[in-house]
């Protein structure tokens, strides 16, 4: 029998706030252990939580970005379970009435090659709720040590419906999700820093049926490659069991990235009885509809919407939009340049190819990874460069040189052209003289051209370009050569 995997994801995303979810203690990645605590973080006797409004608003924006319905009322519940990293031994979360309901995310599946757009589809979400992160355990040989710095950091838990059907779809979904969240400035989603963590529920069912099989829950998938590997492992594991006539045990499994296998943590029977109940210390949050509208208005266009618009309005090819659109800063850079000089394709090319290459090289040369916001060039640089090329001031060829110089010095192209005397030569007398010399010096090429080999002309252009240091107007050169040979 053929089986079809059905996958649901639960993604925890750290919301970018300066302070914690229920107290004003700050959070910063990499701080010395237990330096970012206060009485509330440590769950000292007598402490009480107070909501961080910024976290609520950012989570609502996340919900809007993911096309959720923002609840008019959301409430806080306690999830009771004992664990040494949990200062109160209950987690403040939203069980009954979460902030964001439903939602959907558009994803792009990989195309036949990197240069070809893949199929798009929508993945349905169940909900997004806010909760607090616990502290961090480090397991040593005989003991465990605890750092409570992370405790109380605001997390949005995004829960999908079981609406993904392969590891590839899961990965596409995570990439789309990450782009949306980073775009909206809600989180940096750096999985290495624990800003985005993923649990995967996997079940199998016979192809063509639509009831869900027994699922297992995989924890601790803290990189995209882990997500892919763990899901594929689990699909194989379940397939083997089912093919051997066995049945799947509902359980929680932990992915061991080092061994590339998962192992069982606990079965359903041992699953926690969390004794959720409304938190008596926190009051409900009412979300006025006007505020929802305001928050929505602050949000950027979604990456795939932008990509569609670029392809339609600017006729940009997928090879360019697939580079620009996933990154909001690149798009904004592009759009700003476009305001100064309306040449979308040329500008997009400079950004997607030259600029990104220079940035990558700059970061390879010891400097930390450069992002576009740290780059010495402004949209005006690129726009001006394209403009001088379009106006025939310099050739495309010289443009490459000007670009490198711009990136190195930060000077505007006009300045560089002036300083280096790179202005294109439009002196037809000089060009004609040089062309005549070239024709005289290469009879073979002239003959070939006359026989119909247009490419032979290049052999004549070379010496002219060399003599003018590349500044000869290429169009004029071509025209003069043809005229001279045809007339001669």
């Amino acid at each position, binding site marked *: 029998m053929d089986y079809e995997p059905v996958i649901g994801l639960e993604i925890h995303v750290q919301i970018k706030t300066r302070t914690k979810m229920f107290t004003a203690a700050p959070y910063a990645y990499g701080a010395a252990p237990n330096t970012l605590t206060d009485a509330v973080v440590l769950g000292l006797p007598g402490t009480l939580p107070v909501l961080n409004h910024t976290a609520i608003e950012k989570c609502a924006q996340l919900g809007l970005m993911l096309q959720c319905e923002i609840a008019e009322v959301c409430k806080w519940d306690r999830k*009771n379970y004992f664990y*040494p990293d949990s200062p109160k031994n209950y987690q403040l979360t939203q069980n009954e009435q979460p902030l964001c309901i439903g939602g959907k995310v558009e994803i792009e599946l990989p195309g036949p090659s990197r240069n070809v757009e893949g199929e798009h589809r929508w993945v349905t979400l169940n909900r997004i709720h806010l909760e607090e992160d616990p502290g961090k355990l480090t397991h040593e040989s005989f003991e465990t040590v605890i750092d409570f710095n992370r405790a109380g950091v605001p997390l949005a838990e995004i829960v999908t419906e079981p609406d993904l059907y392969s590891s590839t779809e899961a990965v596409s979904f995570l990439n789309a999700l990450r782009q949306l969240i980073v775009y909206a400035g809600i989180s940096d989603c750096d999985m290495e820093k624990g800003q985005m963590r993923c649990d995967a529920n996997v079940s199998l069912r016979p192809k063509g049926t639509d009831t869900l099989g027994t699922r297992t829950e995989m924890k601790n998938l803290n990189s995209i490659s882990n997500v892919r590997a763990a899901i594929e492992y689990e699909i194989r594991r379940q397939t083997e069991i089912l093919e051997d006539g066995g049945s799947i045990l509902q359980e929680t499994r932990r992915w061991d990235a080092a061994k590339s296998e998962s192992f069982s943590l606990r079965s359903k029977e041992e699953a926690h009885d969390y004794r959720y109940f409304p938190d008596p210390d926190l009051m409900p949050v009412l979300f006025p509809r006007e505020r929802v509208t305001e928050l929505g208005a602050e949000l950027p266009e979604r990456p795939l919407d932008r990509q569609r618009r670029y392809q339609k309005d600017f006729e940009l090819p997928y090879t360019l939009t697939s580079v620009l659109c996933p990154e909001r800063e690149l798009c904004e850079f592009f759009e700003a340049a476009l305001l100064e000089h309306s040449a979308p394709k040329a500008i997009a090319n400079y950004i997607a190819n030259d600029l990104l290459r220079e940035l990558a090289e700059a970061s390879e040369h010891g400097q930390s990874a450069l992002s576009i916001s740290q780059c010495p060039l402004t949209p005006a640089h690129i726009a001006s460069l394209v403009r001088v090329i379009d106006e025939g001031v310099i050739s495309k060829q010289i443009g490459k040189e000007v670009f490198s110089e711009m990136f190195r010095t930060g000077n505007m192209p006009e300045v560089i052209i002036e300083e280096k005397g790179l202005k294109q030569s439009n002196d037809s007398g000089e060009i004609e003289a040089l062309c005549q010399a070239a024709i005289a010096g290469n009879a073979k090429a002239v003959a070939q051209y006359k026989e119909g080999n247009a490419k032979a002309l290049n052999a004549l252009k070379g010496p002219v370009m060399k003599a003018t240091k590349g500044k000869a107007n290429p169009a004029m050169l071509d025209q003069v050569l043809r005229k001279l040979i045809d007339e001669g």
Partner: protein
Amino acid sequence: MSDLHFKTIAELAAALEAGDTTSVMITQAVINRTAAVEDKVKAFLSSDAEDALAQARVADERRTAGQSLGPLDGIPIGIKDTLAVAGQPLRCASKMLENYVSPFDATCIAKLREAGAIIYGRLNMDEFAMGSSTENSAYQTTANPWDLETIPGGSSGGSAAALAAGQAIATIGTDTGGSIRQPAALCGVVGMKPTYGLVSRYGLVAFASSLDQVGPFSRTVEDAALLLQAMLGKDPLDSTSIAPQGETDYATALREKKGPWKLGVPKEFFGEGIDPEVKAQIEKAIDWYKAQGSEIIEISLPHSDLSVPVYYIVATAEASSNLARFDGVRYGHRSPEANDALSLFTKTRGEGFGDEVKRRIILGTYVLSSGYYDAYYLRAQKVRTLIRRDFEDAFEKVDAILTPTSPTPAFRRGERSDDPLSMYLSDVYTISVNLAGLPAISVPAGFTESGLPIGLQVIGPAFGEADMFAVAQAFEQDHEYYKATPTL
């Protein structure tokens, strides 16, 4: 002045103002009295005489400099061991918090300090405020100063007994189901529980968050008013605290409010289970009000017989979660037997908690557990709504409600220790007030033939403290039971 330790705050404030005494003299008097009677009463878990005298000297210097902070400035006030005072032990009379010292002040303590009060000593209580007799302290049992063989009531038994015995000028307690009013009644002092939210709970070690309130014990209603107005106010650290509504200069208002009033007497509070002497004395008090021109209206609180089950479900459920933080990880007791993560919790908690606390945690865990939540916890929350509605209906017709505070006078030590249900039933007159979030006060209303105090409870509508105080004070000033002191 003689017998400074038995004076009221108002009397001492006048004497301090007149220069007839000093804070050091008052504080020393209280310290001396404690030295003399503490052996018999055992109200204090600890006290730091030097620290109290140092605070008193500062208060005296302030006064000399003409910078007195008001009527509480220089008055020594005892604190129940469930309120956090920076640098002092905070044990909640539990072995679980054996060596714990709070690094911060509760908001109510900070406010008392701002008013100049001398924060003096840690007063005994039932462990984690669970009990009605102070027999559940892990450290000592406190005696009722009126009869050392009887209990002082609870859970704030130390606060009531210390005040009755002249070991403080006033004390602070907490009231979750009657824990201020019942011991006040049993020890012949005034005890007051404010409207829920009026006094911040920040720094009060939570027992049942939706019921807990901080309140004063004092010799007179006026003193209670002075203490409450110093402690109240919306606190940014307690999301359930509320900005006071209406008059909050209660002490001044008391001089104007003289009645007559419409006073409700709930028939359900005079049925079975009430001690005949208590019943007779409270009926006499009601007759007095009638004779003074107040209208006595028989009212019904039809769901009051359900208040005990509702209370013991809601309170234990919240407690089971609130007390989860006592786990031996970050502070307090840790079992020396703990050898893995599970036994760290189970052994620590098995050793650290006393019987009553275990009983309530188990009960509260059960009513929230899978399969029982709806039948117990959710249902209790709904009946709680009905109980509150009963009071709302009653306050349509009356200004205040009169009831006995406790169905019986102080009982003998050990009498109910093995029968938790009968102990729970002794809270029957006080707990519905907590469930409804209302203010109530107990004032001395005479003595039994054997010389045990009896308390009259006056219940007001939400934020109706000003009138509630006035009703209570009218009776108090005409009877002056507070002038009687126990012989020790």
